[in-house]
């Protein structure tokens, strides 16, 4: 009863305040749209799990008690930029969606980024890699949460060289994302004092990497860098194990690998793989507690960093909406940048002017089967990269929002 009265009072106050048009929640509902790949390559790293994560964030935020009605819708963009754009446009134009979250696949993410900017809503990206989202294509309506190509290249690249992996051979997927990842990592390796002994470009969606792996073996590089993603990464790792690359003394560096990929491969194939993630469920008590709750609601699958990013992003968004009592896109993002972030998953952090969320990154190695004590016990942390070093320096991205 008191609860209802609070809403009525609040509503009356809002209606009476002058110039109140901006300080209102459109339709009195905050609608969150989770847009990702639900059925193919990236369904496991985000998929339904991201929807679960969003719902958990709404629950933990105690939206009802605060008088906010929050709804979640979701859709499958099938990794196609045209499908993703159409869904995003329809959501905003015809269904009152205020914020779009997740969106793996850089092509789709860039398209949605533009649409959300044109229509002045909010885009919290957790799934995509393109560092352009906070660089050349940065927008006052976009927050890029979990990771990006620069962080992956630098995190994995420099940390590995520091650990002694100073000669590299690249196995690259022959498309824009692969090239970008290879280019960025190569730059870091060279800057850190390492050498690149060679590289080979494989067409995307190659089934058989044996020929390329043979070349990598012949190069005798200490590190074989996999500048690819999704099925290509899984196939190359699986076949590398078959050809005895790790047993022969070389180490595999996965430049874009998720917990779900390791789970799909199995530890006997993935052991020894080095990668960088910004979240791992077994880091501390808070992450563990959250992960257990998540797994219970997600068919016993533990969270990937992308799903963690959706949770944290939605939580921070709701705090901003609540503080402003408005869901005006541009203003909410401003508020999100003004407020420091604090959640059980990424700890304390912040969002920069260019939309980049800052938090520490972890260089991890995949355990041997004998070292794993339970389900999803896959990583041992080799090094922590502090937040101020993990991401590209703010001035280097070419973002127009950054004043020189």
């Amino acid at each position, binding site marked *: 009863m008191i609860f209802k009265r609070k809403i009525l009072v609040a509503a009356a106050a809002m209606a009476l305040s002058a110039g109140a048009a901006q300080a209102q929640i459109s339709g009195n509902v905050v609608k969150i749209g989770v847009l990702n790949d*639900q*059925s193919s390559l990236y369904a496991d790293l985000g998929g339904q799990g991201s929807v679960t994560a969003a719902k958990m964030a709404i629950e933990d935020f105690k939206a009802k008690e605060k008088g906010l009605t929050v709804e979640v819708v*979701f*859709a*499958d963009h*099938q990794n*196609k*930029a*045209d*499908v993703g*754009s*159409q*869904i995003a*446009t*329809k959501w905003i*134009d*015809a269904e009152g969606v205020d914020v779009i979250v997740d969106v793996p*696949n*850089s*092509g789709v993410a*860039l*398209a949605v980024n*533009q649409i959300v900017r044109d229509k002045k809503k909010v885009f919290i990206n957790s799934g995509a890699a393109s560092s352009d989202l906070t660089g050349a294509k940065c927008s006052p309506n976009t927050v890029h949460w979990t990771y990006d190509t620069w962080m992956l290249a630098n995190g994995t690249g420099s940390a590995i060289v520091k650990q002694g992996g100073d000669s590299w051979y690249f196995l690259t997927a*022959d*498309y*824009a*994302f692969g090239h970008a990842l290879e280019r960025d990592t190569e730059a870091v390796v060279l800057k850190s004092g390492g050498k690149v002994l060679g590289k080979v470009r494989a*067409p*995307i969606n190659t089934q058989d990497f044996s020929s390329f792996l043979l070349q990598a073996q012949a190069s005798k590089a200490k590190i074989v860098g996999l500048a690819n993603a999704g099925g290509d990464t899984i196939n190359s790792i699986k076949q590398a194990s078959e050809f005895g690359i790790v047993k022969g003394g070389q180490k595999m560096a996965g430049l874009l690998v998720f917990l779900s990929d390791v789970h799909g491969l199995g530890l006997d194939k993935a052991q020894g793989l080095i990668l960088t993630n910004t979240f791992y469920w077994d880091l501390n008590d808070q992450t563990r507690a959250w992960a257990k709750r998540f797994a219970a609601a997600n068919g016993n699958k533990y969270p990937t960093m992308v799903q963690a990013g959706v949770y944290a992003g939605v939580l921070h968004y709701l705090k901003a909406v609540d503080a402003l009592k408005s869901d005006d896109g541009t203003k909410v993002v401003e508020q999100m940048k003004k407020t420091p972030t604090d959640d059980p998953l990424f700890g304390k952090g912040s969002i920069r002017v260019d939309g980049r969320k800052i938090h520490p990154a972890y260089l991890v190695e995949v355990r041997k089967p004998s070292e794993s004590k339970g389900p999803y016990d896959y990583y041992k942390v080799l090094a922590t990269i502090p937040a101020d070093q993990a991401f590209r320096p703010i001035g280097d991205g070419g973002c127009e929002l950054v004043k020189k």
Partner: protein
Amino acid sequence: MAQLDPVATQVHDPVWEARYHRNGFLVLFAILVVAPFLVYPVFLMKALCFALFACAFNLLIGFGGLLSFGHAMFLGFAGYVAAHAAKVWGLPTELAILSGMAAATVLGVLAGLLAIRRQGIYFAMITLALAQMVFFYCLQAPFTGGEDGIQSVPRGKALGVIDLTNNIAMYFYVLAIFAAGMLLIYRIIHSPFGQVLKAIRENEPRAISLGYRTDRYKLAAFVLSASLAGLAGATKAIVFQLASLTDVHWSMSGEVVLMTLLGGLGTVFGPVVGAFIIAAMESYLSELGAWVTIAQGIIFVICVLAFRRGIIGELEAFLRRRRKN
């Protein structure tokens, strides 16, 4: 080959046919003029582009008797060229669309010269292989943007005056293009050229013995079909302000076959109906991901086994039977 278009081989009464088609066009365009005020216009535009694509495809299979399994190459490649023309060269919308169409026409000539030499299954396989080559080219060529595609394509202004970022304005622009395309196809089918094409489809050796250079007719049909598919693709790229790999992938070639089969091979309105249904299925079932693929597969199977004439085909057969009685 004649068995692949069960509708068209029947004996017709041209007067009745003409009246039926005229009424059909009136009904169709009456609905389409009113529709954007009732249904989300962006969906309608998608359906119209696919409908034009399917009509172009139907020209080749329904009337030419040639099943192309690579038609996506025309749709998608024209889309890329149009997108590039509008975004990078800054051409006005009309010229951008025409550039896309021109590119598809050239591609059609090149592909046609290779493919026409064979028939039936072999023809289908060649078109599939050629489409794959175009796909891999588009994947790697720098101008296409690879996996990201060409994004933020400007819609521009119609005739330099009307702002096309307004969805209703864009809709009527697309409707005009669609109407022009459909009417052109209708004229082609009912022209002497169209008659020869039908004769070739039903009995090529006889057509040859009558002195027709059948290869030239088939090539002409192929190029026309490619060109109009290109028109559909170029328009689609402008409407969605995006050109992507989806439109050159072989599954898109499969989809246009499905649309035409479902609507009715060899009918005038069939491809339009089929395109709208498939587009609706994709849009409204998009939350269900893999179920769309399964549903498409089921429709294929049912159509092939029990519903070969397609929706409009069955309707036309019903109307003709009723006329007889």
